């Protein structure tokens, strides 16, 4: 379970990223973070992996504070959370297989385990046959699948996605959404920041609307539409 208690993030230059946010997300939930540009969606996800520390407030993961956590424990926090970026962030000079294996090797997974797990996840995201390709030989949708494979290969309990379909066309976006939905069905908590109204409206999941750093609306089975006054 993820809990934010009165979380405020003020950046060094004085900008408010988030202001007094309290929210709780259960294990296995699927949550869309929507809202206009600058609303604080990315700030929310970056706080959760402790890339940022809040100015005030408390963030708990499974009852444990991630604010008071020692920096030595941060790697272990991040192993529980998979992260997908809008710009994929694949290593260009490594093959698809190596990109995914990299995430396992980086946390010291034995070689035999790597050889088993990588083909399985590549199959799961539908690019089992592309393992020897380099990222530049793939379409945007295929690259995002590699990034998803990399994010889930460690079996994280939470998958964070910051506009994973932001660079993709509508039909490719739907395919990626289907993969993420499948991952959710296997029990992984999904938190996804997005501007993709079609996907949000189609899936009918919990929708948290952020605006100017505050929560405007929080609806189970919500839709994308929001009005900014």
């Amino acid at each position, binding site marked *: 379970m993820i809990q934010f208690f009165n979380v405020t993030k003020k950046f060094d230059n004085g900008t408010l990223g988030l202001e007094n946010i309290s929210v709780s997300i259960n294990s296995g939930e699927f949550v869309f973070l929507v809202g206009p540009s600058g609303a604080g969606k990315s700030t929310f996800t970056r706080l959760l*992996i402790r*890339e940022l520390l809040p100015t005030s407030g408390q963030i708990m993961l499974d009852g444990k504070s991630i604010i008071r956590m020692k920096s*030595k424990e*941060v*790697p*272990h*926090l*991040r*192993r529980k959370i998979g*992260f997908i970026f809008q710009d994929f*962030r694949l*290593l260009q*000079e*490594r093959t698809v297989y190596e990109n995914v294996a*990299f*995430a396992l*090797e*980086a*946390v*010291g*997974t*034995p*070689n035999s385990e790597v050889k088993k797990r990588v083909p399985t996840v590549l199959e799961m995201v539908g690019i089992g046959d592309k393992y020897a390709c380099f990222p530049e030989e793939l379409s945007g949708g295929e690259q995002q699948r590699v990034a998803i494979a*990399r994010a889930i290969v*460690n079996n994280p309990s939470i998958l964070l996605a910051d506009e994973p379909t932001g660079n993709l066309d509508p039909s490719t976006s739907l395919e990626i959404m289907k993969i993420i939905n499948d991952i959710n069905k296997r029990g992984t908590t999904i938190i996804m920041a997005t501007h993709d109204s079609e996907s949000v409206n189609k899936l009918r999941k919990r929708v948290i609307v952020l605006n100017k750093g505050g929560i405007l609306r929080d609806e189970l089975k919500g839709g994308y539409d929001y009005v900014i006054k």
Partner: protein
Amino acid sequence: MSLSSYIRYTFRDAFRSIGRHKGMAFASILTIAISLFILGSTLLLVLNSQYLVSTMESQVEINVFMQLDLDRQDALAFQKNIEKIPGFQSLEFVSKEDAMSIMQDRFGKDTDILKSLAGVNPFPDSYRVKAQSSESIAAIAAEIEQFSEVESIRYGKELVDKLLDFTVWVKNVGMAIIIGMLLAGLFLITTTIRLTVFARKNEISIMKYVGATNWFIRFPFFLEGMLIGFLGAVTAGLIIYFGYGSTIQYVIKSVPFLPVVADFNELYRILAVLIIGGTTIGAVGSVIAVRKYLKV
């Protein structure tokens, strides 16, 4: 995580990464090699200048002239007074007869000097004294002069002063050049390492996101830096080794009177310093360069 798989991973990663960033690795090796080559050559140059100075120093002599009426026994016994003086290196006794025959040789066979001097040998017994270094010559000379058995002493004071100045100059300038080269080399090397690490900042950032510990990220860089430093230093070392060997041979052949350090033990010591230094700089430099990207 098992230690053996970790070690296997880091070593493989270090080698693979050098393979992947061939251009960058090659540039770093080259930079390190050039820096260390210049540093090593400077060291050898300074070493040879110091050797030259000390050779010249050892050739400076003090001529000690005994009282003319001192008998031979006392003149010979005086030797131990000189030997006791600190900084003394060696001496040679020159009897008045020796002095006479040296003079005779100088004038040639046509003139009989003894005869023209009315059969009186005007030369005293004397010593030629050598000091360990030019710095002690003046002190030794002053000490010898105090003995009543000594009539007078003579040595190339001006030459000694010049040599002294030159020794100090070689030491200071050599030191300055070496420090300058060391700093320039360090700067060049750390800049290249920083660039090498910068080229891999995406890798580091992804490793941070998937939860790699800082030491896990650092260690392959540490190994890679060490390897690159080592290869650069060995390249520089080989060039210096063969370069110095042939330069010395050339100098000995074409300028035989110029003293050069032909003792390769000194060279080996410099090569060892370069290789240990290069490897250390590579390893430590990489770890320092990575630090910046670990703060996410």
